[in-house]
Each structure stands twice: as C-alpha cells, then as structure tokens.
C-alpha cells in the first residue's frame, strides 16, 4: 500500500553504497528556470566506479555530472554547477528543452 517515489531508491542506494565502503557522491537539482525536465530535489547518486542511479535532467547533462562527481569523491569539495541553453557549451551539455538547472554535487561522508 506504500508507493515508492523515484528519489527513494536513490537515497536508499546512496546509503547502501556508502555502507559498503564505496566513494559516493550525491547530485541534487537545487534550482530550475524555464522548462526543466526534472524538478528541484531530484537526485543522481554516483559511486567511484561511475555507477549511477536516478536523474537530474532526464539524460541531457548526466554525463557531465558524473565526470564532476568523480572529482568531488576524490577531493571532498562540493560543487555547484549550472547547465542551460544560455551557456556557450549548450550544445555540448545542454538542455534541449530550453531550461536552465543548477546542480549541487557533494560527497557522501
């Protein structure tokens, strides 16, 4: 009778991976402007071997977030990244829907 939200699995996995001793980072959509594919609060969890679960954009910027997450797992410093069409690199890692999102990446300590 309980329904699992998509983010439930992500946080449960973050807990499990960290307990197993893996290096883990958690990425969270903290702000959106325009039409963003995933709402504020959406999570992506990444481990040190680039395994990941969840989504922050429905696929458009996950690749970049995973690369940045590797650095966050190494040095432990959180990062705040912005993605959107206003950015010159839009075609590289853009949001096809025309929105802008800000993603916070932090290490699970």
């Amino acid at each position: 009778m309980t329904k699992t939200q998509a983010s439930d699995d992500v946080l449960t996995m973050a807990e499990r991976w960290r307990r197993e001793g893996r290096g883990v980072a958690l990425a969270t959509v903290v702000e959106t402007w325009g039409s963003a594919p995933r709402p504020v609060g959406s999570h992506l969890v990444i481990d040190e071997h680039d395994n990941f679960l969840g989504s922050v954009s429905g696929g458009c910027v996950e690749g970049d977030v995973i690369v940045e997450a590797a650095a966050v797992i190494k040095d432990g410093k959180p990062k705040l990244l912005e993605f959107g069409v206003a950015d010159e690199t839009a075609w590289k890692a853009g949001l096809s829907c025309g929105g802008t999102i800000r993603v916070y990446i932090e290490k699970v300590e």
Partner: protein
Amino acid sequence: MRLDLIVALNAERTARRAAIIVTELASGAQRLVREQDVDQDPLAAILKAQIRSGKSGTAEAEGGRSFLELHVPPPRMVITGAVHISQALAPMARMLAYDVTIVDPRTAFATPERFPDVPLLAEWPDQALPKIDLDHWTAFVALTHDPKIDEPALEAALRAGCFYVGALGSKKTHARRVEHLRARGLGEEAIARIHAPIGLSIGAATPAEIAVAILAEITLRLRRGPEAKA
C-alpha cells in the same frame, strides 16, 4: 551529505513522516529537520511553508542562501463506501497522486467491475483499517451513509490524525452522527475536525461534481492547513 543524515532521513521516509534537509550553500553545512522538530528550527516559518507546498526549493535567510530538500510521504486516501461518488472520486484522486483504498463490507458494492485498478477491501472498518495504517498524510472520506460502517471509520481517522476527515450526509444525519461519536468517547475538538456537509460549496450536483468539491476541500487542507478558508 553525511551518511548519518541519509540514514536518519531514510528512517523518516520509511516511517511516512515529513523531513527536510537544509543545506547552507555557502558553507555546505547541513542538518536534518524532522517534521515534529520544525518549531525549534531557526527557519521554522519557511520550513512550514515548504512542507505545505510539497516542493523543495531555495530560501534566503540570515547567514545566506539555503537549499531546502523536502521529503513528504506520498499521500493516501481512504474511502468508506464503494458507492457512485467513489467511482468518480477514486480515479480523480489517483490523478492527484493519492494512493486510494476503498473499504466497504457490502460485497455487492465492492466489486472490481465497479472499481477497476483501485484496491478494495470488502471488510468492516475494524478489520480493514489496521491494515492501511491511517496517518497524518492520509485523507479519509466517509461516503456510505451507513453509520455502522462510517462511524467506526470516522473514529479511527480522527484518532489517527488524518489531515482531512470528511463525511457525506445532511445536517440532520451529521447531528445524529456527532451524538454517536461523543458516545464513543471522542472530544468536541476532534469531532469539529469532520468536514460535513462534505466538500467545498460549489453547487455540485452530480457524483463527479461532488468528487471535485471533495478533492478541492482536501487540497485546501493539504496545502493551506486546517484553518484556511476557500
């Protein structure tokens, strides 16, 4: 995020209680605020509004910008009465993301043909309700007109602190119901939480329109709290 915060957050979510992770974006400092501890938090007013809105977001506060990551349980709706109004109410409530369960011991009413895709418990409330675990994130709606079914369920819903409790019936029916609930030992304050006549006053005439009136009233309670007027 610290692992102990994730563990504590996951425990709250499993227990179907709201919780917020507050992250100060400048420093990265984080804390978990449980729903029952919100009043003691420096951002109490903002956090309460956030819980009502049902959304995560950022907030400007003393000491800078914070990200408020909200976790609220998926809302439930429990209906007594596999009746005509329920046939409209259940699918509409599902569109509003409620987990709907219908309780009606009358097996002629509670049939899958009448309610495709809705969990039906063809049992009396005292058998069915303990399985559902009514809570603060549950809306309860009594629609049978039969006091033998509605009243024990109303009592359970009020004692469980459901955020919305509504009962179909005329003022006369409700007056009689109130007498019975008093006799069951419920206080005036609890009884006053029942929305009766049920639904916002929008002139609803058909079962589907009554369902809209009920859902509008439930949404008002969910988003604006127990006192707000429509």
